[in-house]
């Protein structure tokens, strides 16, 4: 397997409006890939089309060398997902949600350990709805890692987290990467992207405007800081 994720000629439109336009992506195994772009650029739609929760209008998608539509159940044994908005049953408690998730997989990770690692080890008996936004965010990262995945999708992984918690998440993800995990993430924090991502793709109104490394992006724009390069490439630079 030379690619963990392969997307070819992906397009998607809603009610006649083109949201994704001829998108090609490739993510190598054991790397961290960042999908960037402004709100509404099509990041979440891309993830949902790749995962099959939205049906693309055209294009070919391969995950871990397999067709996600045909081998859904087999494939999702090895894939973890964190959606942008966390969703859970109304009255469920943290440990119940973790247990229920873990039982779906053949070789689940130790979720109690993961909860401790992500700083919510003391919240296990609390209802999920009573957690703070940041705690819930971390819980959903834990849920995405419970499958012991080969590939994990993290949509806006650290939105709502404080600086310390973000660093904690980065550290854990870097550890997991050294163990061979492939990470596909979206983020609005350029320091995070710079710290974590091996390769990035910048989307602008559904079309890719850059594909490469953070360094290449900086070089291409002649910028010192990656955030400047990102703003220039995504054409979001605000007039001073």
């Amino acid at each position: 397997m030379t690619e963990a994720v392969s997307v070819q000629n992906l397009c998607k439109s809603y009610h006649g409006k083109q949201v994704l336009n001829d998108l090609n992506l490739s993510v190598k195994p054991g790397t961290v890939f960042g999908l960037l772009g402004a709100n509404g650029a099509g990041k979440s739609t891309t993830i949902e089309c790749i995962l099959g929760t939205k049906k693309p209008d055209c294009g070919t998608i391969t995950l871990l060398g397999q067709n996600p539509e045909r081998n859904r159940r087999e494939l999702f044994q090895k894939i973890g997902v964190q959606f942008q908005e966390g969703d859970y049953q109304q009255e469920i408690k943290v440990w119940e949600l973790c247990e229920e998730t873990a039982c779906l997989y053949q070789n689940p990770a130790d979720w109690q350990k993961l909860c401790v690692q992500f700083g919510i080890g003391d919240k296990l008996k609390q209802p999920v709805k009573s957690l703070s936004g940041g705690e819930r965010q971390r819980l959903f990262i834990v849920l995405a890692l419970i499958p012991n995945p080969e590939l994990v999708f993290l949509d806006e992984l650290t939105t709502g987290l404080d600086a310390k918690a973000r660093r904690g998440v980065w550290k854990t993800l870097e550890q997991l990467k050294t163990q061979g995990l492939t990470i596909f993430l979206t983020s609005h924090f350029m320091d995070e992207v710079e710290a974590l991502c091996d390769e990035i793709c910048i989307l602008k109104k559904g079309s890719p405007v850059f594909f490469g490394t953070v360094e290449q992006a900086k070089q291409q724009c002649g910028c010192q800081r990656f955030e400047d390069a990102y703003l220039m490439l995504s054409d979001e630079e605000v007039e001073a």
Partner: protein
Amino acid sequence: MKRFFIFLKTELKLSIRDMNMVIFAVLMPLAIFIILGIIYGTQPAFEGASYTFLEQSFGAACAVSICASGLMGLPLAVSDCRERKVLKRFRVTPVSPAFILGVELAMYMVYCTVSLVSLAAVAALFWHVRLQGSLLAFLGSWLLTMVSTLSIGMMVGGIAKNSKQAGVIASVLYFPMLIFSGTTLPVEVMPQAMQKLVSLFPLTQGITLMKNTFLGIAQGNILLPVCVMLAVTAVCTAIAIHFFRWE
């Protein structure tokens, strides 16, 4: 199998915390039966009958719980999961629609069983209600009624767009069946034309079958109700799984 029970345990706990089904599927049928017991006591069903009014009503009381579980609880629970995007999360895990619906089915079977046991205990203890027919035949007809009604619920819950739509469909099914299929109003007192109409409800067939097997009355044509209910179960389950909506 283990994951099925962990799932069932968690979903059942969540459902009990919510209390709705405890009230509608367990306490309500019990309350109805106790009221009937206080009114009719150990009176015979009619003059010269070999069984009491309560014995005649036992099957119908069981059906109240089946009706609440299958036509209210199950479709609303599944569509609520869909609306909260819990099903969307499950879609990116190895679970299948059949597994999710199977857990829901099992959960509401637990409610119906608890209701049956509590009704039987109260009926036997206070009003000496005795099963006059064969236990196997009664349990068989109870099981068939339950599974066929729950399968209707699975179909509604499996394919409804949102919980509002599921709620409307559930009410349209629940109230007519609760009122007209013999759970509360005996079929025998209805006009002929209406009797013919309500006999199309699987629940009507089920209640008649449960009543007859409980009382040990030989029924002329057992094949028809059994076939109706089996057909309903097969069709509804197939539709629920095949057209299952995750979102």
